[in-house]
């Protein structure tokens, strides 16, 4: 029920976000920002005095957030008037909340946020909105409406992975999930997406094991080795992130199972793409994270102009990043500059 609703809402938001996003990107390429951004229309007086402050609160030090930050910086660098910095949430919701508070107090114009949890950061987002700050969420949406949300959808992505993985396996066989411990919502969305995806597209495939490997390539090697011993007929692995999938690849390599095992990751980091090219990793969900960061930054500059007050967002614009399920067949289309 609620799923269908959310999908519906999704569509509507998608249109809205397309408009917003293309406006931002268009503006960026037209080089219009400096003028707009330095304008004082709607910008609180405190902010107008100095440079505009923007900050990105990441989940924890990680390749994805690092690439986002680079993408954001690339755009913001072109603006002399923006101070941008990256803050670390240390994988703790309460740290993210405290950083939000600090940024609100500091009078940031825009906060990029990769929330650890959709609900837990909602009160902070509401508070930021009251202070006239535009919040852009990255990848994880928040239950509180906010300025914009730029995401590579995890749930649908994982469903697509399930489909691709099932196709490779010919719709039957056994697979195992290399999972992460609960506590960050990405993990739940990807797991659920994968499970639902298999149910929908390939009901013949059985998930024989779902074990935690702590997001870690090393632990994934260990767990994958063990699972292969227990399940000799195992046909594939789904790693909830690329690191864990690459751990399974490492094992497949030493056991000479490359080509026999179907291994999918999630994220699309450059090591994973390289591995796909070498024919080791079967596939991953790829999105251009730099681009995602650039979009976010572009949207941010519009928002910072104050033309659209942060409080105006009853429902955030969603910018859905196009993603591809990168496999050997498609990986070549991803340019070196797009790899992170």
């Amino acid at each position, binding site marked *: 029920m609620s799923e269908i609703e959310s999908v519906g809402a999704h569509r509507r938001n998608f249109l809205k976000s397309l408009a917003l996003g293309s406006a931002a990107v268009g503006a960026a390429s037209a080089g219009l920002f400096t003028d707009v951004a330095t304008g004082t229309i709607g910008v609180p007086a405190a902010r107008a005095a100095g440079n505009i402050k923007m900050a990105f609160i990441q989940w924890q030090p*990680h390749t994805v957030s690092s690439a986002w930050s680079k993408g954001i910086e690339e755009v913001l660098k072109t603006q002399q008037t923006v101070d941008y910095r990256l803050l670390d949430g240390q994988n703790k919701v309460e740290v993210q909340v405290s950083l939000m508070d600090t940024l609100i107090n500091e009078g940031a114009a825009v906060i990029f946020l990769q929330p650890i949890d959709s609900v837990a950061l909602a009160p902070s987002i509401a508070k930021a909105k009251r202070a006239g700050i535009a919040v852009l969420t990255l990848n994880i949406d928040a239950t509180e409406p906010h300025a914009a949300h730029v995401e590579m959808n995890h749930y649908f992505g994982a469903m697509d992975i399930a489909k691709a993985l099932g196709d490779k396996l010919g719709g039957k066989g056994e697979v195992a999930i290399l999972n992460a411990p609960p506590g960050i919502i990405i993990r739940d969305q990807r797991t659920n997406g994968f499970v639902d995806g298999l149910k929908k597209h390939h009901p013949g495939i059985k998930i024989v094991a779902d*074990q935690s490997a702590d997001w870690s*390539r*090393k632990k994934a090697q*260990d767990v994958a080795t063990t*699972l292969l*011993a*227990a399940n000799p007929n195992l046909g594939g692995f789904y790693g909830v992130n690329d690191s864990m999938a690459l751990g399974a690849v490492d094992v497949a390599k030493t056991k000479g199972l490359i080509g026999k095992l179907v291994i999918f990751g999630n994220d699309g980091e450059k090591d994973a793409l390289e591995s796909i090219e070498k024919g080791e990793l079967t596939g991953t969900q790829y999105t251009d994270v730099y681009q995602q960061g650039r979009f976010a930054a572009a949207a941010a500059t519009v928002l910072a102009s104050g033309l659209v007050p942060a409080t105006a967002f009853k429902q955030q614009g969603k910018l859905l990043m196009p993603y591809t399920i990168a496999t050997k067949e498609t990986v070549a289309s991803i340019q070196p500059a797009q790899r992170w």
Partner: protein
Amino acid sequence: MNASIQAFGRRLAPQALPLAILVIVAAFALSEPAFLTPGNLVGIVRQVAITGIMAIAMTFVIMTGGIDLSVGPVLALSGVVTWFSLDAGVPLPLALGVGLALGIAIGMVNGVIVAFAGLPPIIVTLAMLSVVRGSALILGGPDLHSIRGQEAYSFIGSGSVFGIPVSVLIFAAVAIAMVFVQRATPLGLRVAAIGENERAATLSGHRTRLTKLSLYAISGLGAAIAGIVQSSQVHTASATYGEFGTELDVIAAVVLGGTSLMGGNGSIARTVMGVMFLGVMNNGMNILNVPLDIQLIAKGAIIVLSLALGELKS
């Protein structure tokens, strides 16, 4: 009657750990035949190698009533530093030397503060945990640094000799070397003396502070070796490796091996058993696809139970 049971228990108590390992091995083997395959058994050793190396290296520290919470970030830092060295074109032995020397140096800082300034090890190494992690992140950033085209380096973690993974061989070498140090060198006796009675050791003319300093250096070295093995095993180096909790796993292994956190008698060989015990547990529960929540509860319960049994004997 009662007395004879007690006597029996006392005779059995030192063997409690090997017996417990046998029991769980048997239990897992019965419920999942795949458990006992040679591949899986080697796999278990490979899985515990990194924790094992650190646990072995930390055993001496714990025997003297100390603790080293800083091993996680040291593991990360040594991997990152070695990677940077290799990336800069430094020859492999030198790069490894840099990584290991860094581990020793951090251990020595711990050791100097603990042994010579007399500050509590748990807080000193907790502070160092924070300092070293911050330094590693400043140095390496949040990125995963891929190790490419370094066959010799990759061999450390991923190669194998006669079918035995090199990491297992390194683990075995460290274990044998440290058992040797404990049994055959004066350092082994000096550590035991400090653990049993530090005052008496000082009054017997031992340079206890220097000894303690060297033990923290050994622990740092162990973490650095583990860091190199891990980064080689996963073909990447990152400042975020050895995440929070690594040190607790290491300490749990040492304590399960019968070394008391209050200091005192301990043995490297038994630490190896403690490591294997945890390794077998993890492996068995993975193989039986036990859900994570039950795994954690079982792990906690088993640590409590096995230590309570050990306590019962005394």
